[in-house]
């Protein structure tokens, strides 16, 4: 007679009564719960990435905000009413969510630009400068030192859009591409009266973040020092690096102090609320479903053990150790859990890839793999599930005589 495998005999005794329908039902519930949980975490995490401005999403304006004082009927005539005092700046530095504050310093001297190739096109204009750390991009050649005759300029993308879609169309002028603008050289004259300085300005890049005409800070400082040494250099606008612009406390702070900003940027506030509600709703549903899945799975195990009670009891009387039998059950059930969680993980990975692809189409860079919060959620749910299941198995077996 052939020797028989011990595990096959034990399996025949303990798992003979297993109902496959119940097993499938519990595994499907578990899969749905885990997948939903991972999706809820992914929704929250992807949105956090966009909001916190990591992964090159700064140009969405989620991290950097330009604020100014609201010009009211009362403040209109007062000179310097729209300037920020050092005390106000320090208050803003300590405002909720604010990580860094930079001053947008404008020129206190006349600037006159002309375009020789356009045969006499000329205009008075203004220039501003911000510390380099607030720039969304620093193109090649973004520096200026005394003695340089070339001044690099970064133009707001909005200005080019205004020109192309508003001014050019209405005045029957040619629309200009970014590369064409960058190829043009402006003559810039600064100063007044007899004492002026001549420079050649060249647009080296476009900014989505700051609506202004930017030059290197050193150039503005040189001009202000040379042509307006006695005028205090208080900023009229500030650029803020904000951790989470959707924070209600931050929005309230701005409102309370009558500071204006691009309200579009604060629209995240509402969106964040909606996404938070969706993510929490999905999360609660996921936890509920996972709880039910776990419960069904544990009940299934307990039922399997209860149905095999006579065999289990006799195996213990034969000298089989409770630990061996519990481990035997674990070896049969844990792979099912692992496979279920693996299936959920695959769904999460595929979904993140799809999200990243959709994001790319919308000019939002998102990672192609789920981030650590998703893995953490997976690890915690797997740990909890294994703990519950092993506890249920050991408890059920230890109840047997």
């Amino acid at each position, binding site marked *: 007679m052939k*020797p028989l495998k011990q595990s096959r005999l034990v399996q025949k005794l303990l798992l*003979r009564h297993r109902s496959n329908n119940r097993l499938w039902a519990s595994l499907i519930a578990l899969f749905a719960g885990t997948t939903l949980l991972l999706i809820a975490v992914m929704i929250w995490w992807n949105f956090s990435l966009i909001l916190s401005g990591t992964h090159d999403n700064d140009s969405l304006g989620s991290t950097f905000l330009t604020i100014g004082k609201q010009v009211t009927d009362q403040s209109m005539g007062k000179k310097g009413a729209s300037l920020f005092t050092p005390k106000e700046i320090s208050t803003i530095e300590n405002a909720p969510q604010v990580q860094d504050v930079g001053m947008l310093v404008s020129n206190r001297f006349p600037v006159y630009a002309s375009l020789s190739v356009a045969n006499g096109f000329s205009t008075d204009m203004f220039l501003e400068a911000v510390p380099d750390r607030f720039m969304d991009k620093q193109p090649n050649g973004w520096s200026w030192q005394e003695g340089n005759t070339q001044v690099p300029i970064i133009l707001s993308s909005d200005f080019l859009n205004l020109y192309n879609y508003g001014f050019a169309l209405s005045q029957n002028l040619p629309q200009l591409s970014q590369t064409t603008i960058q190829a043009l050289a402006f003559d810039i004259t600064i100063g007044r009266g007899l004492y002026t300085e001549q420079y050649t300005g060249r647009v080296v890049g476009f900014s989505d973040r700051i609506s202004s005409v930017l030059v290197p800070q050193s150039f503005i400082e040189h001009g202000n020092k040379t042509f307006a040494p006695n005028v205090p250099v208080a900023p009229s606008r500030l650029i803020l690096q904000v951790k989470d612009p959707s924070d209600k406390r931050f929005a309230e702070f701005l409102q309370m102090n009558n500071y204006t900003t691009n309200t579009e940027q604060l629209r995240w506030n509402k969106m964040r609320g909606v996404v938070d509600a969706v993510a929490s709703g999905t999360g609660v549903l996921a936890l509920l479903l996972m709880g039910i899945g776990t419960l069904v799975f544990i009940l299934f195990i307990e039922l399997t053990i209860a149905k095999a009670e006579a065999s289990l009891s006799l*195996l213990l009387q034969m*000298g089989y150790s409770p630990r061996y039998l519990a481990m035997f059950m674990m070896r049969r059930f844990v792979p099912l859990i692992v496979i279920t969680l693996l299936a959920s993980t695959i769904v999460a990975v595929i979904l993140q890839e799809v999200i990243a692809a959709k994001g790319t189409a919308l000019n939002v860079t998102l990672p192609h793999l789920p981030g650590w919060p998703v893995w953490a959620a997976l690890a915690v749910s797997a740990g909890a599930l294994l703990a519950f299941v092993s506890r249920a198995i050991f408890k059920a077996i230890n109840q047997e005589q």
Partner: protein
Amino acid sequence: MRLSLEHIVPIPLKDKINEYNSRVWNQQLTFNSGERVFIQAPSGTGKTTLIHFLYGLRKDYEGKIHWSAFKMHEINREQLSQLRASSVSVIFQDMRLFPELTTWENIEVKRRLTNTVSEYDAEKWLDKLGVKHKADSPASKLSYGEQQRVAIVRALVQPFEWLIMDEPFSHLDYANRQRAIALIDEVATMNRAGLLLADLDDNDYFTYSRKLLL
């Protein structure tokens, strides 16, 4: 392995055993390794109860039972399984085979636990007791006599220092009983094991070193 009984009194029979003169209940007894003990137990005196106490299936007694270092009142479940798997084997009065397994599977489920007896020996022993041809039959289809013989072989396919038996031949005719006795004697001698047999009537199935009235 030495078996000690220190004033064992089954709680459900506490009042009853005071009415007669038991040589086992409430006595201080020590059985040495390799002893062959017969316990004669008239009906209702707690024969099966005693076997269950010794095998650790019940704990509703006063007093103490020691299998050498194993104290049955303190033993944990893992130690108990170790004791059952490799030191103390049992033949139950009600056989306790797995009805859903075949004869051979019933033997294998026990033999594979320790792998100390070869399948050749197990097969030979089934043959000796005349149940080898039933190897592939489900235990539920066997007669009581056949079940009892399978239960005897199952008790022998593990290492043991003591074999405790509760009416082990109650369903066997004379010839089958003699074959079973011969096999148990052979394997117990090979293992240098002690025997403890409890039955209703006096007998000389084995050469007993002690006979006690329960």
